[in-house]
């Protein structure tokens, strides 16, 4: 049961992280390796507000999400916007460069050692003899659910969301039809980075922060993205929960050091059997 809870939380973290990654893949057309570093930025800025400034965890989480979204946009503004129109693989290489810079800056500012929030572990809620989950764990799942719902309604019910979808499916056509693409690109980067930041805050809650965490998670994010169908947002949501549950539940049968190997085996099989992923790019 405990593993199922961990799996669910892992799935939620991957969901938030991958949805942002997929949005950028859809709108900008390249794999943003630096998206993993947004998780690190979110986690570390929450650490600053929570442990160094002494705010409580909820307000520091919110502040961290805001900071991450602004930083993500700035990175895009400095690095990616000028490269628009170059081959996507080239921009992907540039994003690894951006990734290096962010990791290096985090190391310079916070040092190479792991950090933790000032946040005592909570006791699990019990129903009879059956221990369910701690309040913070439930809060994380609820927050991720709300974020996913918010994104769904934003994309399907609002003008802005519809415009973003139009831009994702055909950038030039959207621009010709008078959609304000420069502004929408800003929104996309802000939303994607904010979601990544939220995922980073949650990682800080369930484990520790380390400067190289961006690299650890970007691989899982990309695996989830393939399973869900590259660039598909709803596919990414489903795939994130699947991968989260599988990697955590497999600990019951297979030693934990093989969870990465399992994830890798999954994508090889997916690519052989159904390369378009669970959902086709819709």
């Amino acid at each position: 049961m405990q593993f199922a809870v961990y799996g669910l939380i892992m799935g939620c973290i991957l969901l938030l992280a991958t949805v942002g990654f997929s949005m950028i893949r859809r709108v900008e057309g390249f794999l943003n390796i630096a998206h993993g570093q947004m998780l690190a930025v979110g986690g570390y800025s929450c650490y600053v507000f929570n442990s160094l400034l002494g705010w409580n965890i909820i307000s520091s989480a919110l502040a961290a999400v805001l900071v991450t979204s602004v930083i993500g946009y700035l990175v895009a503004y400095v690095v990616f916007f000028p490269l628009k129109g170059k081959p996507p693989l080239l921009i992907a290489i540039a994003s690894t460069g951006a990734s290096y810079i962010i990791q290096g800056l985090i190391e310079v500012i916070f040092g190479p050692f792991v950090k933790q929030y000032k946040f005592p572990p909570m006791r699990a809620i019990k129903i009879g003899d059956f221990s369910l989950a701690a309040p913070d764990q439930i809060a994380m799942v609820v927050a991720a659910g709300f974020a996913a719902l918010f994104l769904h309604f934003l994309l399907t019910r609002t003008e802005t969301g519809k415009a973003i979808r139009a831009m994702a499916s055909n950038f030039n056509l959207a621009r010709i039809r008078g959609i304000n693409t420069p502004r929408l690109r800003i929104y996309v980067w802000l939303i994607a980075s904010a979601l990544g930041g939220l995922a980073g805050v949650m990682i800080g809650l369930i484990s520790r922060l380390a400067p190289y965490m961006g690299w650890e998670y970007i691989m899982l994010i990309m695996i989830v993205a393939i399973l869900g169908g590259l660039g598909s947002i709803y596919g990414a949501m489903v795939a994130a929960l699947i991968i989260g549950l599988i990697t955590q539940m497999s600990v019951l049968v297979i030693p934990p050091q093989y969870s990465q190997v399992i994830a890798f085996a999954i994508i090889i099989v997916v690519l052989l059997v159904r390369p378009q992923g669970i959902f086709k790019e819709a």
Partner: protein
Amino acid sequence: MYNILLFLAGVISLIGIYTLLTLAVNLHYGYAGLLSFGIVGFVAVGAYTYAIVTRGAPVGEDVYHFYFNQPWWVGFLAAGMVTTIFAFIIGLPTLRVQGDYLLIVTFAFAEVIQDLLSNEGYLTNGTRGFINIHQPFRELIPGRNYQLFLAGFIVVIVVIVFLIAQRVGTAPFGRTLRAMRDNEPAALSIGKNVYRFKMEIFLLGAAICGFAGAMYTWYMTLALPSLFGMSVSFAAWIAIIVGGQGNNKGAIVGTIVLLGAQQALKFISTSPELTPMVSSFELILEGLVLIVILRFWPSGLIPEKSPRPPKLAKITEEA
């Protein structure tokens, strides 16, 4: 004086090995437009294959079960072959689909290989790794002179690989690759089997990485999982971007520039407190170099020279 010579021999060996990786990246990306981040995975496979094939019986606390006790050249060839087999397995599902998938799968492959190296003790001796790797011709050249010999030997191999890569680049095979890279539908439409060409160049590059892995163990005289981190792949990538994609000379120049700069940075980190700081700055610097070059100087130090096009002026005059 002799110490300086030994140091230079070490640097030359390292540059030679990295040059092989950069040449492989150039074959993959520069010629064929394949973006594989997993170079280091192939290097690790090559290195460990060499170590296992040339290994003697385990002693002391060693936990590995497989050893073949073969001479170095058997290990060297095996390194290339086993790596090629791995590359074939990776290429089978990924080369048919878009380039993004290859990037992700090779990235994951490199991470998984590093994991397996530390977990599969019966095969790789776990995190203890292999020490005292068998070096070629070691028994003929005793003492420190061996460093000088090894540098020369590596340079010879690099020259051979460079000539092969050069030949591949100018041959019809290389032309087809470039056509495929620049316009895949067009290459398909004139009847080129794009998948097969991609697979062949992917295997060739991976084999070079495997050989480079074996040579890396000669240089280090050990094989540890921690040696094969992602930074090795990215070093080759930065070198190719700095030097210029699509030509082999650029690959060599880029590697020399990058490794020269890295060695220079090592001199700065003299005190132990400074070392983590310098390595963080190295990350920032490498990232900056990558972004700045891609933005302002996308063709690198030595731009790719396209083969001369047929004279259009004459044709238009006639028309």
